[in-house]
């Protein structure tokens, strides 16, 4: 899950039903699915499906509301000078960029590699070739 998702996951799980006053999200896929993939009589699956689609919207909305509330709040109360608060969205984007670069760096350092798998694969290839050659499948030529 991404950065925003991580922030919002707890929020969404605390208030799962809080947003039920919103109209049911129009989910045409859900009808499609009911007719094609859900086993008949399984209404539980359909319910979860709709809930999940809702949850995504709730995540986006909560994030936007939280950020704008914070910003407007700061503008109103002027705890920090107004000129700074106006620049806050820019800081936000810059810090998001920094976060991204950091994650790329961390990811690069921890990139999982598997050199032993290459050796195992070579063995499998040799074994397969041996078998196929015996059975008369054409495996020569292009290596």
């Amino acid at each position: 899950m991404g950065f925003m998702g991580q922030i919002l996951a707890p929020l969404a799980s605390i208030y799962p039903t809080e947003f039920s006053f919103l109209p049911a999200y129009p989910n045409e896929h859900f009808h499609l699915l009911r007719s094609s993939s859900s086993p008949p009589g399984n209404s539980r699956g359909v319910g979860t499906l709709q809930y999940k689609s809702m949850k995504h919207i709730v995540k986006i909305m909560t994030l936007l509301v939280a950020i704008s509330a914070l910003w407007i709040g700061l503008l109103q109360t002027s705890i920090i000078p107004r000129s700074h608060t106006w620049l806050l969205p820019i800081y936000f984007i810059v810090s998001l960029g920094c976060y991204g670069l950091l994650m790329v760096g961390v990811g690069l350092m921890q990139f999982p590699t598997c050199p032993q798998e290459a050796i195992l694969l070579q063995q499998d290839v040799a074994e397969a070739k041996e078998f196929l050659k015996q059975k008369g499948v054409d495996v020569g030529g292009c290596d």
Partner: protein
Amino acid sequence: MEKHKYSIIVPTYNERLNIALLVYLIFKHLRDVDFEIIIVDDGSPDGTQQVVEQLQQLYGEDRILLRARAKKLGLGTAYIHGLKHASGNFVVIMDADLSHHPKYLPSFIKKQLETGASIVTGTRYVKGGGVHGWNLMRKLTSRGANVLAQTLLWPGVSDLTGSFRLYRKSVLEDIISSCVSKGYVFQMEMIVRASRKGYHIEEVPISFVDRVYGISKLGGSEIVEYLKGLAYLLVTTQLFHFTKLFMNCRKKLPELSMVGIL
């Protein structure tokens, strides 16, 4: 318990050696499972189809299906083409170049049976998985692409561009019809759309040994294509939600829109 059948769709183009090795390895690792291999060959000039015919002689024409097409028509349509001929209730999609090892197939099937998931996707970025044969540039691009997509799309899946996946057939049919992208982005679009539609997705670690025979391609144009695809997905799967919600609000709550007008 109902009996499952797995249709393994393998698109090929000039993979005459790899396809033989792949088929052998699939049969080696899937012993007590009912499955068929559907090879969608895009008119390879190197004789891939002749090799497949030899394999059919060896393993049986009911286990290996050759569904060739006249010329190179792209990955997405290859899956749709293969899907039309699939008789299983589950579909596995994998590459023919042996970067996806058939030894992981049992873990895909096991995971699906345990969790009842609609999609099981192979991930290279968790413990137990990994990549071999990538240089620093390739790793950097891959990481950057992943972070960007994770932050913008929140897919809930750690590996978006991997294409080694197991789908419930009806689910694949549902999502494939709404996907329009090509190449790398196609894989990403499939999983993001599946996630948005609320399908249950599970992950299993896989290792990815880069093309044993052949050259991998990742240039500037691929990166541009990727960014374009990402922007497209951002608009259609994230922002589009809002427009829909807003429209629905107005339809259902006329008094609310009145307030808005006032």
